[in-house]
Structures are given as structure tokens and as C-alpha cells.
């Protein structure tokens, strides 16, 4: 990897680290982080595919309140770097995906450390606030964000220092059953993210929508965008019918309430 690529990778890692806490632009999501690393290292398409598969796993990861989810930022950056270092071959995709999981946990601890350091930072802010010093508040906020960036950028540097040959040798030394087994596991762990999301949003009212979506997915001619459009249509129809039913009694039912009966009566 050239020096320029390395610097760009570290910049991407820094952005991902910042976003891991800010959660605004989504640079920390595997889909974006892996793609950017692919872009700057010249392995764009394989990294897009890696990002897609990691994204499927990370779909349900979210920071709620004070709880921190597994860290998508370190997972995506580190596994993309390892993937690129090993030559971005399709067969190491399963391994790169599997490596991401323990990294996501490691990232979680790093986040906790930085969040604890930030307690000290806001105490400094308190002092500066008492002096009415606006510029100091700005500066310390930026320092705190940069710490979050470094949280991912430093591990990225460490990974880049490991020679690519060693990464490749380690990965190719892996027996086939382990490699393939991890790929199989990767296909299944996707379910955990979905389960997390369902546990959050499911209730009696929305389960039928789940069933329709599940059954329709078997029609392979329908792309996801087509299915999304169907889902939106069903939802709008449901909400619309519901509001009509709410004021139902007075409006709409001018006839006998039986259109077929009305037609027959007209004869």
C-alpha cells in the first residue's frame, strides 16, 4: 500500500471514529467506511461487497440512551484494512467478516474509555463557562470529538504497520473448514441484528406486515425497491382505512353498505 493510501485510510478511520459517537453522517457504518477504504486503496468493488455483508450484520446496532451497541466503526475499519492487506480476495471475505465481531466488542470498550475521559473535559468546560469564555467551550468540544476520532485512527495505524505478507500468510494458513465455517456463521449472524430490531418495534398490530413481507420476498423477480414500494403502499392504505373507519359512521355509507347488493337492486 502506498504512503498516500495509508494516510487516506487513517483519515477515513478518523472520520469513522468521530461518527461512531456523533451518529450523524454515518461514516462509521460498514457500508460507508468499507467503501471509502476500498476507494482509497484501489480495491473498491471487493470492499463494497464486504461493506454490504458487514452492514447486514450491523443493521440493528444502535446507541440507545447511555447503552453502547457493538462498535460498527472499529469493526468496519479494521476488517476492511485486514481484507485489503490480505489482497482483497473473495475467499477471505468470510474471515474478514468474522474478525469484525470481536473488534466490535473491543471498540465498545474504547468508546467507554473516551466517554469517561469526556467527563473530565466537561468539568473544564464548566470552569470556562463560569468565565463566559465561549471560544474555550468550542475548543474543548472539538478536542472531545478528535479523541473519538483517534479511538479508531490509532488502531488503524497499528494494523497498517503489520506487513501485508504476514496478514496474507496468517489467513491462508487457515484450514478450509474454519474459513468456510465462519462464512456459514456469517450468513446466520445477520439474524441477530434483525431480531434486535424486531424486539424493539414489534407489536400485535405490525406482525401481519412482517408476514406479508416475508412471503413476498420469495418472489425473486421483485427487487428490494419494488418490495419497499409495496410495503409503503400497504402501510398508507392501512393508516388511511383506519382514519376512515374512525369517522366511518357518518360518511361514505350512503347506500346499504353492500355495493354488490346496490348493483343487484338497480336491476
Amino acid at each position, binding site marked *: 500500500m502506498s504512503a498516500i493510501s495509508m494516510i487516506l485510510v487513517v483519515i477515513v478511520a478518523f472520520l469513522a471514529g468521530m461518527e461512531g459517537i*456523533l451518529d*450523524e453522517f454515518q461514516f462509521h*457504518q460498514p*457500508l*460507508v467506511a468499507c467503501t471509502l477504504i476500498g476507494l482509497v486503496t484501489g480495491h473498491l468493488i471487493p470492499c*463494497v*461487497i464486504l*461493506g*454490504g455483508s458487514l*452492514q*447486514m*450484520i450491523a*443493521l440493528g446496532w*444502535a446507541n440507545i*440512551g*447511555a447503552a453502547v451497541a457493538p462498535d460498527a466503526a472499529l469493526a468496519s475499519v479494521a476488517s476492511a484494512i485486514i481484507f485489503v492487506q490480505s489482497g482483497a480476495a473473495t475467499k477471505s471475505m468470510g474471515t474478514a467478516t468474522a474478525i469484525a*465481531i*470481536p473488534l466490535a*466488542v473491543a471498540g465498545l470498550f474504547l468508546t467507554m474509555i473516551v*466517554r469517561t475521559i*469526556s*467527563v473530565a*473535559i*466537561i468539568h473544564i*468546560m464548566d470552569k470556562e463557562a463560569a*468565565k*463566559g469564555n*465561549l471560544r474555550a*467551550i*468550542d475548543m474543548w468540544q*472539538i478536542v*472531545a470529538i478528535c479523541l473519538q476520532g483517534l479511538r479508531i485512527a490509532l488502531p488503524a495505524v497499528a494494523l497498517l504497520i503489520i506487513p501485508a505478507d504476514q496478514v496474507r500468510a496468517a489467513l491462508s494458513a487457515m484450514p478450509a*473448514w474454519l474459513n468456510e*465455517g465462519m*462464512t*456459514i456463521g456469517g*450468513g*446466520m*449472524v*445477520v*439474524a*441477530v441484528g*434483525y*431480531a434486535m430490531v*424486531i424486539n*424493539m418495534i414489534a407489536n400485535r*398490530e*405490525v*406482525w401481519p*406486515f*412482517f408476514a406479508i413481507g416475508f*412471503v413476498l*420476498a420469495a418472489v425473486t423477480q421483485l427487487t*428490494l425497491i419494488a418490495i*419497499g414500494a*409495496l*410495503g409503503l403502499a*400497504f*402501510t398508507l392504505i392501512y*393508516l388511511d382505512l383506519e382514519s376512515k373507519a374512525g369517522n366511518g359512521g357518518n360518511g361514505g355509507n350512503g347506500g346499504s353498505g353492500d355495493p354488490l347488493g346496490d348493483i343487484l337492486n338497480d336491476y
Partner: protein
Amino acid sequence: MAEKKITLTKRDRWSVCWRSTFLQGSWNYERMQNGGYAFALIPAIKKLYKTKEDRAAALKRHLEFFNTHPYIASPILGVSLALEEDNANGTPIDAATMSGVKVGMMGPLAGVGDPVFWFTARPIIAGLGASLAISGNILGPILFFVLWNILRIAFMWYTQEFGYRTGTKITDDVSGGLLQKVTRGAAMMGMFVLGTLIERWVTIKFTPEVSRIKQSSGAYIDWDKLPNNPTAIKTVLEQWNMGKGMSLTEYKVTTLQDNLDSLIPGLAALLLTLLCMWLLKKKVSPIVIILGLFVVGIIGRVIGLLG
């Protein structure tokens, strides 16, 4: 109502909105998003208060504990802007009112933000993007990034403006039916797409053979009797007829997977998801489940159950 001496221009409000992007930057275990909240309001504080004491008081008010969904903070920031503006224009508003409004809004609103953004919008948009990306399509990440950020910035700006215009009255509007309807609609849409994603992207393949039947001659292509010239390929393709004609092998093999698929395609994936939901409800850590599934994958591969 008295003429306002100082008003916040659109430019000031936009500056606050942009800074609220960094709301969670100094997220800490003591007062959570407080640093970010004060940071976001600094352009307004700078404009509204000129003395050191006034600025210090304003900063202190906003360095109080604060935590909500990062995008949902926008309408609350809008309300704070309206209150601070009134305060600077001579309608004294005490610090207790200022924090009361913030605390009163952050809890209920976070309850809307998390399911709508983190558990519906992001899984849907990222799921769409990821399914394109897995097939090597660069549009996947681009779609996700662009769509998400347009939605996010639009939401943050318009809700902040809404909060600024309505001031403290916002709580009445928020408890109205529309917000609830949006939340429910989002959950329906989310469940629909999740059903699809589970069928398409959770992959489990059981390899054990259930049956192996020797087919009668004529039902399969007899590879030994093909002419030894290029027309053989044509003959085979005609006999195979895109899978509708003769079988390619002498034995008809049915795997466990074929049997499951003939019930409902994706049944195993569905069952696995239900199992995960159950485990999560039993407070099993997601990390443990994920690592467990990798172990199951490896063992399954070794004993030849999964492929």
C-alpha cells in the same frame, strides 16, 4: 407584545443547526450530551448576550444534564433558542423553566426518535444499500449515504425551525395524533421490510441428504451415449431444456434444505430469527449470540450438517 431588540437571524439558526451535528461529540457518563448542547447554542449566546455574566449564566443553563436522540434534539434546541431570545429581550425566564422545558421534551421525544431512526429508517435504507452492495454495486453505499443525509439534515433544520416558531407550545403539538401516526406507520413499514430481509439475506443451508433415488433410464441424460463431437453440447442442452427436461444426474438427490424450502422458502431463517429474539428477551448478550452462531457454523461445517 414589546418590540424585540435582538432577534436571531436565519443565518444564526442555521449555524446552531450545523453545530448540533456535533451534539454527541463530548458525550460523557456524567451529563451525557450537555457539552454538545452548549456548543450548539454558542452562536445564539454570542449574539444575544454581550456581558461576561450573561454569557456565563447562559452556558451554565445549558451545561446541565441532557440526553435524547441526536436528531430529536433539534426541535428542543429550537425551543431553547426561542426562550433565550425572549430572555435577552427583557422577558426574564429563569433557569428552572429553561431546563424544565428541555427535560420535559427529551424523554418522550427520544422514545420516538430511537424506533423511527435507529430501528426503522436506518435498517430499511441501509438494508437496501447493503443488498445492492453485496452484489458489487457501488450505488448501494452511495444511495445509503445520500438518502440518509438528505433526510437527516432536512429533519434537523425543519424541526428546529418548528421548535423556534412554536416555542413552549410545541409540547401540545407533539402529543397530537400525527407524530404517533408516523411512529406507527414507520413500525409497519419496518416490519414489512424486515420480513423481506430475513427471507433474502439470512442464509442457512442444510446439506444432509434425505433421499437418493435412482431414476429410470430416459429420465436423465446418459452421458456415455452422447456423440463424441461438438453437437453433443447441443444435444445435452436440448435434453436438459433449462431444467424442465431430463435430469443431469442418474440419482435424484433431495437434501433437507429442499424439503424445508418446499414448505416455505426461508423457513429456517425465520426460525433462527425467532430463536434470536427469544434469546435476546432472555437477556442473552447479542455478542454472545453472534459468537455462538459462528461456533455453530464451524461445527456444522465440520460434521457436514451445514454448507
